[in-house]
Every structure is written in C-alpha cells, then in structure tokens.
C-alpha cells in the first residue's frame, strides 16, 4: 500500500512536469500551428542553469535568473522559427528540432555531461500513511498547480490573454484587429518556455539532469499534448498527470529500465488513437503581407 502511495506521489510530481511541458506545446501550437521540438531543451535549461548557479547564489536568486533565461531563450527560438517565414510547415518542425539538437551541444559545453542537481527543499522525507513523501515533490506539484491557475486566469480575463487566444482562433481576423500574430507567437513561445524552465528547476532536485534528457521530456510532454489533441489545455494537463502516474507505477512494480520504452509505446498508441479521429493537413505557414 505504501509502495503504491509512494509511486502515486512521485508520479504526480513528474506528471506535473509532463503536464507543464504538454501545456507549453498546446499554447505554442494554438497560437502558431508550430510544434516546438525544443520544448524539452527549455526544461533542461531551467534545471541545469539553476543547479549550476545555486552553487554560488541563493536558490531563489538562481531560480529567478533561470526563469528569465528560459523566457528569453524561448522567445529567441520562437523568433527564429516564426519571423520571415514562408516555407512548408515540415521545415518549421525541423527548425525547432535542429535548435533542440544544437542546444544539447551548447549545454554540454556550458555545463558538462554529468548529471547535475542542487539540494531539494527540506532535508527529511515526510511520512504520509506509510509512504515517504519528499517536500520537494509537494513543491513541484503545488507550484505548477498554482502557475496553471494563474495562466488560466490570464487567458480567461486579461486583454492580452484574450488577444493571444484570438490569434489562435482566427489569425486573419486578429490581424485586422491590429493583433500582430508574429508577436503573439513569440509571446506564446516565451510563456511556454517560462513554464518549462520552471518545471525544470523544480524537478532537478529530484531527478538530476544531463543535457540529453531533453528528448525524453519532449516526448512525454508531447504525449500529454496529444491527449489534449494539441489544442485543449485541460486535457493536456490531465494527460501529463496520467502519464506521470503510469510511468511511476511501471517503474515501481515492473522494470525501471522499461519506463522509457513504455512511455514511448504509449505515445505511439496515443498518436494512433488520435489520428483515427482527425487528420493533419499540411499548411503553408505564411505571414502574408
């Protein structure tokens, strides 16, 4: 019983991270129709940057710096992918893929290939009905949940949030209203990257990062987004949480080595299930006039 509970809690924590990445995918896709393969790299940025800085600075300061860096990096990725573009969408996907691969190299150069981490919040595990729960896990779940709530309020009630939604719903109409869809797109990238960076810096005390983990994070986040059909934020969040729980259970009761394989197989199954419902049409990704 306590084993299950422990798995559920750790699954919830990792699931919150997947949900955050998945939400990032959804946000960017809704506004720009782009699938950002580099999403995982931004999680790594948040995590490793904080870990390295936390050696010399106080953790909150390091975290803030990492968040700013993530938002900025994300905006750069967005700007590079979106501006001056009149090509096939296949190519845009490849651009983000290329940036993700390049980031791996850059991170290895900056921070090395060995797993890095920084101390988690609270030094002792809490006892929760016989299961060991780390305060850091609660922090991950709590903070990400709070951020989700803030984002929801932002998109629901603020003028800018509605403008972003409008750009997602009808780009042409948005443009004649004076809403610059490219600027909105870069903003979507920035917000998603902020979210990813946050997820990264919260997760890294629990799971040390190397620059290579961006692939696994991106795939899991994408699986969550696929549950949300790439457009539904709530379903994407639920998908992420579910995926995290499933992986934790597989790791606990079965073989941890197969955790990744299972996640991937699940992703493929999800993709196939969703594709049965709707099909993807290539679109010209043009900025028009």
């Amino acid at each position, binding site marked *: 019983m306590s084993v299950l509970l422990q798995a559920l809690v750790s699954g919830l924590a990792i699931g919150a991270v997947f949900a955050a990445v998945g939400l990032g995918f959804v946000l960017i896709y809704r506004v720009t129709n782009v*699938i950002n393969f580099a999403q995982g790299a931004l999680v790594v940025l948040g995590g490793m940057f904080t870990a390295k800085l936390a050696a010399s600075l106080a953790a909150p300061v390091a975290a803030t710096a990492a968040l700013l860096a993530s938002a900025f990096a994300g905006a750069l990725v967005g700007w*590079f*992918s979106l501006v001056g*573009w009149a*090509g*096939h*969408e*296949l*190519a*845009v*996907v*490849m*651009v*983000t*893929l*290329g*940036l*993700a*691969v*390049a*980031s*791996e*190299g*850059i991170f*290895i*150069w900056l921070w*090395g*290939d060995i797993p890095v981490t920084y101390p988690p919040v609270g030094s002792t595990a809490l006892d929760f009905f016989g299961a060991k729960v780390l305060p850091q896990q609660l922090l991950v779940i709590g903070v990400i949940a709070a951020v989700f709530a803030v984002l929801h309020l932002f998109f629901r009630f603020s003028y800018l949030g509605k403008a972003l939604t409008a750009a997602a719903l009808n780009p042409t109409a948005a443009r004649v209203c004076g809403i610059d869809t490219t600027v909105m797109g870069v903003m979507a990238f920035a917000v998603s990257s902020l979210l990813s960076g946050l997820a990264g810096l919260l997760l890294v005390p629990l799971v040390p990062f190397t620059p290579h983990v961006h*692939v696994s994070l991106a*795939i899991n986040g*994408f699986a969550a987004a*696929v549950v949300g059909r790439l457009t539904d934020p709530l379903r994407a969040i639920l998908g992420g949480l579910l995926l995290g729980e499933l992986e934790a259970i597989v790791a606990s009761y079965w073989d941890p*080595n*197969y955790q*990744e*394989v299972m996640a*991937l*197989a699940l*992703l*493929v199954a999800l*993709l*196939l299930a*969703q*594709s*049965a419902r709707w*099909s*993807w*049409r*290539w679109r010209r990704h043009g900025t028009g006039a």
Partner: protein
Amino acid sequence: MARVHRALGLAFWLLVLACLVQVPAFLRPYQLDHGTLAAVYALAAIGLTLLTGYAGQLSLGQGAFVALGAYGYGLLSTKADLPVGAAIVLALLLTVVAAYVVGWPLLRLRGPYLAMGTLATAIIVYGLLVNLQPLTGGAIGLLRIPPLEIGGHEFRQADLFRAAWALVLVALLLTRNLVHSRLGLALRALGADEVGAEGVGVPASSYRLHVFALSAALAGMAGVLYALHWRYLSPDTFGAQLSVFLVLVVAVGGLRNVTGAVVGTIAVHLLTVWLQDLGTQSWLPARMPVVLSTTVYGGLIALVMKFMPDGLLPALGHYLGKLAHGLAGLLPRPAEGAATPSPPPRV
C-alpha cells in the same frame, strides 16, 4: 547536343567507376574506414530521401532500420550460426517485414505526429537493443561477427569499400530511374498533396507503405554493410542521433535530390571528421568533439531548413550558377563560329 550530354554523362560515370576501383590503393586504413562509413550512411540517406523528400513523410526513425539490418545480420550469423549469404538475405528480409509491420499503423500519422512516432520507434529500438542483454549483448555489444566471403575470398577493408560504394551507385541509379518513372511521379504527387493525389487515383496508403519499406530496405542494407565491415555492433551507433544525422544529410543534400543526398553525406561526414579532429586539440576541453558535432548538426538543420528549405546543395548550386552566369557575362565574347562550352551534364 543531347548526344554530347549523354556521352559526357557516360564518361562521368565511367570515371567514377574507375576511381572506385583505384582509390582504395591510395587511402590509408582509417580513411578507408571513414569512406566505407560514408557509403553506409549514403545508402541509408538515399532511402530517406525517397521517403521524406519525395513522398513527404518525415521519418526520424531511419536509424532504427539500419540497426535492424546490422543486428539482424549479426545475430543470424553468430547466434543462429547461419552461413553469411543466408544471414544477409534473411536480415534484409526481416528489416523489410519489420517495416511493413511497424509502418502499417505508424503511417496513418501525418506530419509532426509521424515525426514523433518514428522518433519514438527509433528510441524504442535503441532501448530494446540495450535492455535485451542476453540476446543483443546489451551496451557491451555484439562481437566477432563473421565477414563476407565469396568463393573463398574474404572481403577486407578495400574490398568492402569498393563493394559499399558500388552498392551506393547501384542504389543511386535505381532510385533515379524510379523517381523519373510514372511511379516516381505518383510518389511526388503524394508528397505534394496527398488528398489531391488520391483524387487522381494514386492509392496513397499503400504507396506510402511501400516507399517506407523500400527506404527501410536500403537502410537495412546499409546496416548489413556496417556489420560486415566493423564486425562489432553496439547500440550507441544506432541511437536517435543516427536518425537525426540522416535527416540532416537529406536536408543538406536537397529534399528531392537523391544524388544530393550522397554528396551531402560525404560533405557532412567530412565535416564531422574535421570537427572531431578539431575537438581533440589539446587546448580544448575534453568534451569538445561531442559539443562541436552536436551543435553544428543542430545548427545546420535549423539554418538550412529556415533559409534553404530546398536543400543546402541545390541552393549553393543555384548561387554558383548565378555567379557563373555573372562571370560569363564579364568575359569577352568568343569569336564567331567558336564552340561555346556546354554546361556540365546534370548528374
């Protein structure tokens, strides 16, 4: 004029063949190794160009089929103790069958979903290769794979180099014929607009599957060649990085240019080797080779796909052509009656 072109084309190919036979004598062993490796990659790249360039199906999983071919031959010849010839044939067959089995559900996906799905498949294959230790030797790898022997003559380095590149040439010629045939036209229609292609009677789903299998067959052949040359396999050679590398090569060489894929492979491979040499200079930190290659790969993909989506080499060719045109304009006009040089034959 056409006859002159054809004659020049033929001469070009004969020259290439002659090089193929002679070159190994001038190369040192490690250069032969790299040369053969380039041929292996080129073969897989040709397959990927067909799939991604012409038929428009972005696959990030080509490396998985190279792995299947390599490990297929390796396992069949060591664990199953099959004779070399049978092992090769069976390995190829298995790769093709796997392609049909995996492709049938996967190819229902489109666009980035297919990309993610194939990437996931590549990583699954890698994970299986690492985890199925008793079968595949896990991370340590598969050792002592028998080499190719025909009529008592063991194919060593130089022989394999020639065999590999001969295969590349054959594949090149065959695919070019395919591309220019009616079937090729149907494929390109498929890649451009699937719904439209179906509208004019192209059976999209089955064609997509067949191209997938053909591409996998070429990758499998590449894998077999790899196993025959190096006779040692480890999962790390066949990770997601290989698939990404192949996509880069196709992007660089031109999405719809099979010859470009081969040239692109050679170019990128040379770049990789140069970067590795550069990275191991004593004054650079230890992890430089990986850093350089990864960053350059990724950066190249991003830059090429953004600014030259039709491929780096076609774009370069375009600019060089313009440059040549411009320079030609500066030259004094030839005397009346003198033959103007004809452009090099389109290869």
